[in-house]
């Protein structure tokens, strides 16, 4: 009797990607200094990528041998969305990407406040007034603590920076 856990949706594709990535990295590592010398700069990356390729193939084999999830009423894609990438998660990651991009443009304070409010809403904290206050309070604390105690220079933003008062930079 097999004791392997069932295969997760998308696992086979992920393992295949892992193998392809490892093979690509092995080739890239090989191109660093080919087989010039046994102690050349490319040897260690080649060893790592080679190990990744071998263990990646082993993991692919394990995933191949594992039985798929018992629920056959849904397609693999549907199962993937439900189990690994639900809408909330995708929206949250999209908000993080937007936040990272906005940091440089609108600055830390504005982008963080907008990110906090929107992500709290997306994740299910429906009390808007509480969200407004908690975000403002926490941001204030982060700003004060990190600007003063940790001397961290936070991004002022190329768009809003010139109009932001000095003490908020």
């Amino acid at each position: 009797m097999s004791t392997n856990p069932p295969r997760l949706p998308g696992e086979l594709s992920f393992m295949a990607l892992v193998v392809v990535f490892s093979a690509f990295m092995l080739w890239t590592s090989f191109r660093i200094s080919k087989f010039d010398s046994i102690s050349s700069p490319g040897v260690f990356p080649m060893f790592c990528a080679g190990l990744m390729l071998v263990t990646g193939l082993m993991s692919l084999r394990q995933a191949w041998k594992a039985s798929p999830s018992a629920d056959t009423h849904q397609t693999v894609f549907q199962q993937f969305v439900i189990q690994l990438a639900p809408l909330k998660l995708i929206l949250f990651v999209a908000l993080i990407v937007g936040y990272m991009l906005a940091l440089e443009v609108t600055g830390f304070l504005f982008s963080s406040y907008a990110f906090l409010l929107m992500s709290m809403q997306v994740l299910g904290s429906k009390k808007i007034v509480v969200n407004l206050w908690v975000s403002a309070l926490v941001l204030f604390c982060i700003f004060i603590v990190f600007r003063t105690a940790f001397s961290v220079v936070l991004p002022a933003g190329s768009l809003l920076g010139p109009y932001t008062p000095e003490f908020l930079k």
Partner: protein
Amino acid sequence: MMEALGYFFMSWLDVKMVLLTAVGTFAGIYIGAIPGLSVTMAVSILISFTFRWDINEALALISGIYLGGVYGGSRSAILLNIPGAPAAIATGLDGYPLAKLGEAGQAIGLTTVVSVYGGFIGILALAIAAPAVADLALMFGPREYLLLAFWGILLVGSLSGQSLSKGIFAGALGALIACVGLDPMTGENRLTFGSLQMSAGISYVAAMIGFFGVAEVIAQIHQLDLKPVKQNVSKIIPSWGLLKKYLPLATRTSGIGVVVGALPGAGGDIAALMAYDHAKRTVKNPSRPFGEGAYEGLVAPESANNAAVGGAYIPMMTLGIPGDAVTAVIIGALYIHGLKPGPMLMIETPHLFWFVVGSLTLANIFLLIFGLTGIKIFAKIVETPKPVLLPLILVLSAVGAYAINNNPVDVYWMLGFGVLGYFLKMYGFQVGPVVLGMILGPMMDRSYRQAMMATNNDGWLFVTEFFTTPLSAIILAAVVFTLVSQTQWWKRLRGLN
């Protein structure tokens, strides 16, 4: 001796250090207790803020957070049936049934005292063993370091996950990420794809925050609806009779904690599970059956995981090899401050070693104070709803990744590694070995090439010297044993499968 004592008490006599240690311990308890926040995550984020500080101040804060965090996980395991940290998984098995029986206060009190007791044994072991290990480590050459680093990755890969191949993959991935940038020996570009940004390498702090912070935040979205079960807490301070009864068990399991913690790559979570298993096998008449509220099921894992903290510092301080994921991050902090953990650190800067021992001892005392007080506020804080908590951690992570170089590219790396870490976790890969690989990769690369050059690039001689040098042969035997112990053949032989 007097000099060592002077360094030991350095953190005790400076008000700022005492405050930092206290704040660290207090914060650590809450960070460890809040499900979704981990000590590794906190320390990863923290080092990006404290790199401008004096190293002693940073270490005092980190020591407090580490010890407090390992303990903190037990509180939510007992009160909410949600382990705040992996090291508290075993604690919940008997802690929560105890809370349901109305003995939450007693359970928390006992847990606090045995955690502190385990912590002291770990610190004592660190103070005694580390100088001896450092003396031994002076005999190590590049070959031994290469083997030790490989063993560390192998151990964390094999012990922390279900699949050895996935563990090794994760370690190799980390070591490969560490290769990105200019080769430290020849200045040649490696894996940079012609990008100037990548020539500077990938900031391991950004990677750590990504793997431990962002990935965890994303993974927690699956548990947004998990509702904690509240418990009433009364009478926290345990009776002397109860303590006396469990002290022998706590001593034994603290020993397990020290040894497991000192193994490169193994940590408090493995120590706790092994100690729980030890208690189950050796305690003949537990207070209640295990899994139904046995006090022994609390004492064993909690003393072991705190003892593992001192144990984990031993290979970190003496060999530069982390005992667990947190010490891997602390090594990163030491590098940022221009220090190189290893035997020479113990010889050249003994004050640092004794300062760490002193800070840990102080943090352990604070642990006792904070552990036995403030339960009511605690219950409120750990119930912070995740829809509010997760975005806050994300903002802190972003600030942390940005702060290290004031470079937005690091924030993108953090996010990239966060998403990668999420999928790796979901598909059964552990992210701990990736970070360990990133820390140990450069050491392995350097050691390999030094050892090879020492043999004039003679591959055969390089291989045979692993067997002919006693120290190398011993470590090689440990590596081989670790590999063999993961095979189906070995498991069948031991009747495990």
